[in-house]
């Protein structure tokens, strides 16, 4: 991530801290916000922790998926539509089924969406058409398909599935451990995988400089397809989390579109360069939760809800500028 820059520390621990300063920064920002939020409301307890973590799940999953694709040098505008598709298929098929069948449907959905988006990745690689164009087109296809599968909100899922993502069979007021683990474990696994394995590092190489990676003998095509496949499976997981939280399927286009935009915002805030090849995937877990938390915080501060969105945008811009400034100073020092 910052290997190209000089590191002003010689102690290995300090160096690690320095290299991961953005990840640390966004996590500290999140903890700061959490502590601040806890002072704004009368009670901050298990209910609030469970509420924040479970409500963040869909965005965090989507943001992890987007981050993988962005690191590999792409961008996927269809992730929100894939979330819709996964959400409505799950709601439609899982209603009234026993836990075993529901689990099988969930696994099948994750696999199917991985395959579906791997195909999109292949299409982009083969055709040479920019990622943004192809995925914009597929986003319309997937959301149209979602409306066709479930024309109006409905469907359901098993209580066990709701417990897995929300900590309670009814979707509210349960233990915060299941959602907390569901939010941290996938993010950690993906981040460690990307930094420690050959295929993971190939994503970074392909995203950083495609030609150089190709000349170095890396399979750039496979990296792209793999990134899109992982992105698709994370979008499927986000759809499953949505059905677990709400207990219904919602096929509306606007839901998918805003989810896509939020996922890009989380990726950008997470210090993952849109040019590819740079960034730690674990930071998007924090920024995804941060984006979800902004709304209740601004409301608790008494900010008029019509102005809350403007402030959200200003905050994103502000954080990005601080990040840009620190990178600039770092480069100058080196």
């Amino acid at each position, binding site marked *: 991530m910052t290997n190209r820059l000089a590191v002003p520390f010689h102690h*290995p*621990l300090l*160096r*690690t*801290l320095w*290299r*991961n300063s953005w*990840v*640390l920064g966004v996590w500290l920002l999140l*903890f700061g916000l*959490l502590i601040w939020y*806890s002072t704004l*409301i*009368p*009670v*901050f*307890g*298990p*209910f*609030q*922790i469970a*509420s924040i973590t479970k*409500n963040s799940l*869909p965005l965090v999953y989507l943001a992890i998926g987007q981050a993988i694709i962005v690191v590999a040098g792409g961008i996927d505008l269809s992730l929100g539509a894939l979330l819709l598709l996964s959400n409505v298929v799950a709601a439609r098929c899982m209603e009234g089924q026993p836990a075993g069948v529901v689990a099988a449907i969930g696994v099948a959905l994750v696999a199917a969406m991985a395959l579906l988006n791997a195909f999109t990745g292949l299409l982009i690689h083969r055709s040479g058409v920019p990622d943004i164009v192809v995925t914009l087109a597929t986003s319309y296809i997937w959301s149209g398909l979602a409306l066709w599968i479930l024309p*109006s*909100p409905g469907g359901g899922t098993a209580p066990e599935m709701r417990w897995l993502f929300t900590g*309670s069979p*009814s*979707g*509210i*007021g349960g233990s*915060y451990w299941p959602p*907390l683990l569901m939010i*941290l474990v996938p993010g*950690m696994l993906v*981040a*460690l995988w990307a*930094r*420690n394995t050959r295929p993971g590092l190939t994503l970074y190489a392909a995203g950083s400089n495609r030609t150089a990676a190709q000349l170095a003998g890396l399979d750039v095509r496979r990296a792209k397809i793999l990134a899109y496949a992982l992105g698709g499976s994370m979008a499927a997981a986000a759809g499953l989390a*949505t059905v677990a*939280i*709400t*207990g*219904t399927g*919602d096929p*509306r286009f*606007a*839901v998918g579109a*805003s989810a896509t935009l939020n996922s890009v915002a989380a990726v950008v805030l997470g210090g993952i360069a849109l040019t590819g090849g740079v960034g730690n995937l*674990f930071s998007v877990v924090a920024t995804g939760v941060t984006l*979800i938390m902004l*709304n*209740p915080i601004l*409301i*608790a501060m*008494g900010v*008029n*809800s*019509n102005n809350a*969105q403007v402030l959200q945008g200003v905050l994103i811009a502000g954080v990005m500028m601080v990040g840009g400034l620190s990178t600039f100073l770092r480069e100058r020092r080196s």
Partner: protein
Amino acid sequence: MKHRSRTTVGGLLLLILALLVAGCAAPVSAPSAAPAADAAATEAPAQEGGFTIGVSNTLVGNGWREQMICAIKAEATASGLVDQVIVVNRNGGPTEQIADLEGLISQGVDAIILNPTDREGLNAVIEAAIAQGIVVVAVDQAVTAEGAYVVTNDQVAYARIGAEWLFETLGGQGQVVEMRGIDGVPADTDRHAGFQEALAKYPDIVVSAETFTGWDPSTGAQQALDLITTTDIDGIWTSGIDYPVVEQFQTANVPFVPIVGADNNGFVQQLLELADDGLVGAAVTNPPAIGAVGLAIALDALTGQNPEQVTLLTPALFDTSNVEGLQGLYAPDQQVGWSTYVNIPPYTSYSGSADVSACKAPGE
């Protein structure tokens, strides 16, 4: 080798952070037990006032919904029992609304008024709020949650009352147009059912055309223009897209036919001003002031007056023969899309459109 140790340290660091998340959670959760029990205890004794009201809406930029929120604020001010109104207003579906409702619960509101995005999807969070002693009122659309108060406009009656007036005015025979809203939306389905109920009583009325305006003024205007210039019609029933339709008669210079619309300010004005030019019509109410009714019911529940669990507002009809009634509705200072039927006795206590359009909650 060096690289590997660096990433291991990095991984450990992330793990520590993760534990921090958990660690941070544990100590804060301990003292919360007492206040939570407190909240449950407040359920029984009725309070005198000083309430905090939460409002959840998930359709922003829609005139009807904005007026609904303003009616809640105006009634909160007029009631004198409310200290603060917290409005959570953003576009979204059930996922966003669940998060918003949980945010309102966290803020310790006394009552929540919501316009629900889903009939069943919000039940768990609504029931959790009620279990904490929060009064929950669903307005405009129903929820099936146990213990929630529901206040809705009777959409079946909305269409039936207007259609019966139209068929009666036409003397029980003729060709009419049914200009509906959005196919598949519950309100449209209910209104169509009401229209069919009325139609069944008048066998000589023929529906010559049925359109979907999407509740969009320009779409409705275009459809109306096409219809009145190409076909022979005796009457028009609209699902609220009314004043643009009347304008088309003037544009095309075609004699007016009897028309049914909603209590939109522009339509009420036309009914008053174009009556001399031969316009015959009726405005049927579909008041966004239902938000204020929801607040009145919430306050009744909070002050221990045990209101009805379900309130169905029956629409009122004002036709061109009722000049006094129409003048009472007409709000010259407001926009054409303003819903004029703002005073709903016995629930509302503010004084008319001016209070509602001021849109001021206590302390604002």
